[in-house]
């Protein structure tokens, strides 16, 4: 372990079986990681709030919302892709890709997800800006926290919490728009006509956002979230981590101590760390990165920004706290140059993850392109398996499901393949009109269930296998075939 020797905690006596949350009041900071965090936050919030309002023309028979999880009709729309429940493996594939993507990112640059893109991080960050906007920066916040509950403090707290609630409400409100037509639902929501489940969902998400983003914050990351534990297992000695370079910084000492140190030449030199505690002050989870890698570090890089600033101000080279791998820590300690960052990123493990990830993506794209939008399923009646008719012919019943996954009505034919002397009719036709080729209309984006009877005359009524062939009648064509069997009093097909 490269962490400095543990300081015997002076609060040992105050630790009981339960620990009170220590307030975290991160100081405002600017720098490249902060700017990247701003960018990611803006991007994430924009995607989250704007996506339901994007439109996508699918013609008159399907909704025109670009991204829509239509639970009521069991359809999932995502731009040009429409997924039916039986194609849910596409969604599963997306989730697996997301998982492997996380492996890739984590083993390359550590907990980047936690630091920049996780909703808990984004909303906590947003709420911490609200804190600064209402209460002022770190020191003002600490003062106000310690102040007695005067009317002025109560007013300020109520104002802040009402802003919390407003943000939380917007968050919950945006969520439901993914599950119904956004403009219609917004109108219905405000006129009191939306479904009860919409209001309940908004309420629950408002409250969870309010509590988790406004008050629980880093407690979620440290105590509730399994991801920090899982990620720890994914990191290796070549993963980039936010690292305090203790071999350069220690022993630490204040600027004053450094000046005294510089005066006596030849004495044991102090390290570069001036112990300004800026890295602790800006940390959104309130940890001290100088204690080494720890579960509370979400690798947002804000301490790098803070430390770089302090180093520049005191005329030292930047990067006392920086992204570094454990391997490089060992090399730098020995005075060797660190591995070039590209070599770290393009190591075999990364390439394998990237390969698996891309292969999955390509396979899914191929399947999306090759999947059929027309299908038929045939379920033969099992009770009764056959019916002998008075003229000696034999009838078998089938439940046919015709699947039209195009967003327009289609006419199709269902034809017998095999079953000589046989004919088909459905339960809306007269048996006398039985034919070898049924013509059926299937509504847009729907499955039509039809009861179909196959009748074979007395001379041909023997147990046998045969096929039912579906064909689309429009220019696009396409079709499907299913094998089934014919049963008579002589038994099942061999």
């Amino acid at each position, binding site marked *: 372990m490269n962490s400095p020797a543990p300081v015997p905690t002076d609060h*040992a006596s105050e630790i*009981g079986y*339960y620990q009170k*949350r220590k307030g975290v009041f991160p100081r405002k900071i600017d720098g490249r990681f902060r700017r990247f965090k701003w960018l990611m936050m803006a991007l994430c919030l924009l995607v989250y709030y704007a996506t339901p309002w994007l439109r996508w023309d699918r013609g008159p028979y399907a909704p025109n919302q670009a991204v829509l999880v239509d639970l009521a009709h069991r359809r999932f729309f995502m731009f040009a892709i429409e997924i039916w429940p039986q194609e849910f493996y596409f969604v599963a594939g997306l989730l697996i890709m997301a998982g492997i993507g996380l492996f890739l990112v984590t083993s390359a640059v550590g907990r980047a997800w936690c630091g920049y893109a996780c909703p808990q991080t984004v909303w906590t960050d947003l709420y911490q800006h609200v804190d600064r906007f209402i209460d002022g920066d770190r020191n003002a916040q600490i003062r106000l926290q310690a102040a007695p509950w005067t009317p002025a403090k109560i007013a300020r707290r109520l104002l802040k919490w009402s802003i919390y609630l407003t943000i939380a409400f917007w968050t919950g409100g945006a969520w439901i728009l993914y599950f119904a037509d956004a403009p219609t639902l917004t109108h219905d929501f405000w006129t009191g006509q939306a479904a009860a489940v919409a209001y309940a969902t908004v309420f629950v998400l408002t409250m969870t956002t309010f509590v988790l983003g406004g008050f629980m914050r880093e407690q979620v990351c440290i105590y509730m979230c399994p991801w920090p534990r899982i990620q720890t297992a994914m990191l290796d000695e070549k993963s980039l981590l936010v690292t305090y370079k203790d071999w350069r910084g220690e022993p630490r000492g204040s600027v004053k101590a450094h000046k005294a140190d510089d005066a006596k030449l030849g004495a044991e030199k102090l390290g570069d760390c001036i112990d300004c505690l800026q890295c602790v002050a800006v940390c959104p989870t309130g940890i001290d990165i100088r204690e080494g890698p720890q579960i509370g570090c979400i690798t947002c890089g804000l301490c790098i920004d803070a430390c770089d600033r302090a180093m520049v101000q005191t005329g030292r080279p930047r990067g006392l706290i920086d992204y570094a791998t454990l391997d490089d820590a060992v090399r730098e300690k020995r005075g060797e140059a660190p591995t070039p960052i590209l070599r770290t990123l393009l190591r075999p493990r990364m390439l394998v993850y990237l390969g698996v990830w891309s292969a999955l993506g390509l396979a899914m794209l191929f399947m999306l392109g090759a999947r059929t939008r027309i299908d038929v399923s045939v379920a033969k009646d099992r*009770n*009764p398996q056959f*019916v002998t*008719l*008075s*003229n000696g012919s034999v009838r078998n019943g089938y439940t046919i499901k015709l699947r039209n996954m195009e967003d327009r009505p289609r006419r199709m034919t269902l034809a017998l393949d095999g079953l000589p002397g046989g004919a088909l009719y459905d339960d809306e036709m007269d048996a006398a009109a039985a034919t070898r080729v049924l013509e059926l209309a299937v509504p847009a984006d729907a499955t039509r269930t039809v009861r179909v009877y196959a009748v074979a005359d007395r001379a041909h009524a023997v147990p046998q296998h045969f096929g039912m062939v579906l064909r689309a009648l429009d220019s696009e064509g396409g079709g499907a075939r299913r094998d089934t069997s014919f049963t008579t009093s002589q038994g099942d097909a061999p």
Partner: protein
Amino acid sequence: MMTDPHTGANSRKRIDEPTGTETMGHEWDGIEELNTPLPRWWLWTFYACIAFAIGYVIVYPAFPMLHSGSKGLWGWSSRGALAADIQAEDARRGPQMAALAAVPIEQLPNDPKLLRAAIDGGRAAFKVNCVQCHGAGAAGGKGYPNLNDDDWLWGGDAKAIEYTLTHGVRQDADKQTRTSQMPAFGRDGILNAAQVQDVVSHVRVISGQDKPGASAARGTALFAANCAVCHGAGGEGSRSVGAPRLTDAIWLYGGDRATLTETVTNARYGQMPNWGARLSPVTIKMLATYVHSLGGGEDAPAASAPTAPATAPAGTAK
């Protein structure tokens, strides 16, 4: 050596060197426990759960008592919830049931939605009332007609099926019941054993199972004298008296010689309850619609045509 966690614990607390964490003061064979405190809010959620549990057992049934459980303040019970569900479902179906009651069964096909509802309702009622004899797939069995086929003893249009269901078959309690009685030709001595065999031979010839022979030729005259009055001169049957058609491929009891001999000798007397006495008219309408939909249902006008000529020869034969 074990330390009493209640008394001697505090004196043995110390900071663990490698982790910098306080120990609990427990030690078992040199293994010590570190104090990693729970966050306090965790404790509050635990208390909140306890409070919820207390509230739950007060408002919901919880404690077993001598004769029954505690009722709970809200008076909820699964039985009551079921009753409420059934009531809600009845209320939901109310208008549909009223519409079904108002529309005569032969006009149901004009309203496909109502027809579909009637078939679905009939399917459910069939599973409760009819499957015991007619089977889950309505395929019947020996003595119990297969309702999927196109052969009907008393008429296969929806109205005839509804009538048969309402009044039953051979139910003395119902004045309008479908009834008839085939004589026990053998048992009552109307035909002797040889004559019975001749009649059976004739029936097997007209049903296409045997080739004509001497016995069948003798049977032809016997059939004309004894059977044609109900079954028709050619064995085409008569729905007005529930006399089966003898020329087709469907046999209620069996078309082999032994079974036919048994039938002609002792006759049959199949019965069905008059469901009008047990089920509501709407339920019977739904049942009839369902049975009619099973694949053999006949159209109303077509049904009246064969019935009329079938009764005519029976009448003239008398």
